């Protein structure tokens, strides 16, 4: 079965500091990996995806993620956090042969001024 894990319920970072939100995956073969963000009282928004190619993927709002096959990880990163980045972040995986988009349980990112 395909799955992703987000080991941290919450990440706290000060504005201006780099941030990392962790995600590991368990998928046989080559996975499709995604990051979504959910701002308060809003739906989920797509941030970025890895399908194939460069291991470093750049997405919306200055976020990027690094696909690491040996560590089966797809951590979300941003060089300099903003207070407005505070939100709930979900990692997800999708495999062509399967029907469902499987999400992690989410990580709350809190950026303090």
């Amino acid at each position, binding site marked *: 079965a395909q799955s992703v894990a987000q080991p941290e319920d919450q990440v706290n970072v000060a504005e201006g500091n780099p941030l990392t939100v962790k995600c590991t995956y368990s998928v046989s073969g080559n996975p*499709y990996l*995604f990051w*979504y963000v959910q701002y308060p009282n*809003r*739906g*989920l*928004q*797509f941030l970025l*995806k890895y*399908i194939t190619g460069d291991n470093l993927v750049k997405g919306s709002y200055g976020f990027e993620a690094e696909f690491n096959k040996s560590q089966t990880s797809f951590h979300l990163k941003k060089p300099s956090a903003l207070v407005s980045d505070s939100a709930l972040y*979900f990692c997800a995986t*999708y495999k*062509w042969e399967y*029907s*469902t*988009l*499987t*999400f*992690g*349980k*989410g990580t709350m990112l809190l950026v303090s001024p």
Partner: protein
Amino acid sequence: GAGVSQSPSNKVTEKGKDVELRCDPISGHTALYWYRQSLGQGLEFLIYFQGNSAPDKSGLPSDRFSAERTGGSVSTLTIQRTQQEDSAVYLCASSRRDRVSTEAFFGQGTRLTVV
């Protein structure tokens, strides 16, 4: 439409009543998903439709839950004899689900409160 539309945005219902939640996906998207997000919980997969194929109902929590998708477009999620534990935000998403574009686009959700 420009995005995935869900209605109603909020629904309060009495325990034991039936409810219907509607999802209007992005035009041309063949894949449609329903998820449930409970307070403090992640996203729980409910059901998946892809084109004219039989839906994947493996995530439906009980036989009180059902969904249909008419004409490959609009979908309705029905919960019969609602229980308090059904209270959650129900999210719908659609995607093209092809080799080029696989990301899903989500609606704003329907917040269901069973009292």
